[in-house]
């Protein structure tokens, strides 16, 4: 049973005009077995939240806490967070020229598991995971994300998640850019990991498309650097039909008050 607890998180980035506060007090708890969704307008800070939890050096936590099972996540280096069981499926996975997927996956698995997986068993494991996610076996010999289509990159992220078996995973717009079939394959993969090992999920998304396939019992509306409303699946439907206007307006009114 794992628990990621984010309390009053404030995060800034260094801009041209000095530091700019993006997250303005985020409170959120994600436990094993739970599925949370965060929806919010562009630029509201959703990716910033995801990156801050993962430890991206561009983001400075100015106050607040993040803990995983009581351990101080903010005190951990990026790789320590991954080893502790956190996973971030990135919105824009980067290319790593000259590093093959095969080498990358094995190095990552070795790091996260604390020992090199036995070669034969590992090859079988990768092959099976690739098969399930309908990733062609030839990808193993390609360089990480190099020349991958948008959808292929997203599938590759979930492949990593499947192999690294995190306790808590943040999926930043994993659904965007996926065609109908790919969305199905990817959500099946996510559900499988969720069912098998109870990975707690935080889905960042713009549409209810994904939430139809990965039912989220907790939906949070993210506006201007914080969660302004939380509810059940019905909240997602409301956003789908009405947009964020009501939330943005009330947030502005709240800020003025």
């Amino acid at each position, binding site marked *: 049973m794992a628990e990621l607890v984010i309390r009053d998180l404030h995060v800034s980035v260094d801009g041209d005009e000095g530091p700019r506060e993006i997250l303005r007090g985020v409170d959120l708890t994600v436990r094993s077995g739970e599925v949370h969704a965060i929806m919010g307008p562009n630029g509201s800070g959703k990716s910033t939240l995801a990156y801050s939890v993962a430890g991206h050096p561009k983001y400075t936590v100015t106050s607040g806490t993040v803990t995983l099972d009581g351990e101080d996540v903010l005190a951990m280096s990026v*790789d320590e967070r991954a080893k502790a069981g956190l996973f971030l499926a990135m919105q824009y996975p980067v*290319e790593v020229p000259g590093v093959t997927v095969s080498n990358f996956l094995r190095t990552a698995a070795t790091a996260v598991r604390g020992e090199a997986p036995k070669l034969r068993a590992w090859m079988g494991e990768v092959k099976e995971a690739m098969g399930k996610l309908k990733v062609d076996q030839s990808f193993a010999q390609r360089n990480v994300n190099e020349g991958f289509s948008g959808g292929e990159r997203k599938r590759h992220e979930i492949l990593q998640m499947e192999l690294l078996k995190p306790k808590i995973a943040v999926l930043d717009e994993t659904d965007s850019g996926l065609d109908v079939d790919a969305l199905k394959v990817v959500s099946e993969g996510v559900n499988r990991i969720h069912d098998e090992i109870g990975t707690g999920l935080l889905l960042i998304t713009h549409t209810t498309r994904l939430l139809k396939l990965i039912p989220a019992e907790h939906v949070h509306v993210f506006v201007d650097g914080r969660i302004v409303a939380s509810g059940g699946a019905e909240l997602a439907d409301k956003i789908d039909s009405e947009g964020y206007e009501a939330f943005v307006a009330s947030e502005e009114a709240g800020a003025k008050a």
Partner: protein
Amino acid sequence: MSVAHEERAIAVTVPKDKSEVISSFIPADFDVPTGREEEWRFTPLRRMKPLLTALPQNDGATVEIDGDPAVIGVDAAQGPIQPGEWLVPVDVVSALAWAGAADTTLITIPPKTDLENPVTVTITGTSTSYQKLRVTIEHDSSATVVINHQGTGQHAENIEVEVGARSQLKLVVIQDWDRDAVHLGRIHSHVGRDATLTQVVATFGGDLVRLVSTVDYDGPGGSAELLGAFFADAGQHLEHRLFVDHNEPHCRSNVVYKGALQGEHAHTVWIGDVLIRAKAVGTDTYEINRNLVLSDGARADSVPNLEIETGEVSGAGHASATGRFDDEQLFYLQARGIAADDARRMVVRGFFTEVLDQIPDADIRDRLWAAVDDEIGAVGSGVGS
């Protein structure tokens, strides 16, 4: 000695935007460079003074050859040989090196011979030395020749390479010098009809290394794959100049040089000149230099230059890119649990893969990867300090 060379002074045309270049075996035909000349403007001349002055003492260097003498005609003590048929010095250092080298190291692979094991020449510098090497692979043969440079001192060298018709030569030239060595080298390769030259230049050591690699062709169908990897640390000057002269039709050239730089005043220079002459129809050429800057205070100069005198090329392109180490790549790998040092190693190794993975011989490949790892190790400890 220079008398015998006199009538060999030949003028060759080089890319038009360069002033007419003198080609001669006679050192006195050249002005001593001042640093204002186009081809010397990047080079720290004061660090190579002994090589600029007329014929200082040639203290020699140890030359060891490892290869089957029954198959290859190896003679490290031939005495003066006739001037090269193909290599003509284009600068004073090369001319001095030609005149100053006492012996010629000859490696000759006879026709219709496939050498299984590489021939390895190890040149160990001590103080000041001049070297002359001639690598000839006759027609319909295949071989790998490795030239290792190590040791210290000031070293000037000419290597003449001739690839016979339909032959395949893999030539690996490694600069594994001590940190204080100075090496000015010229390699000229003459690629025969339907022959293939794969040349790998790997420069890691030395204080100042400046290599001029030129290629021309003996007939149609020749192919030159010119690969380079270099890694400059604080204070090192590593300069690679290439000139591919497409003087015959339907030949191919592909140049890929990759360099990493780390530390205060690490300086690399890459000049890639390709000339496609009017008669060289059907030429296919591409050249690229990529540099990875790992720290502040390092500088990479990169100048590709393509001159096309015919409208009938089948492909011609060049590219050059110098970029900082990408922290996003580092973050991505770390976010998958890979420790910062390992992630950095993976990214830098990945950068060199394109070049080093093409090295034919597994032992040499492993050795160069080990050299890269050493350099990265030095980088890792340099970071944040």
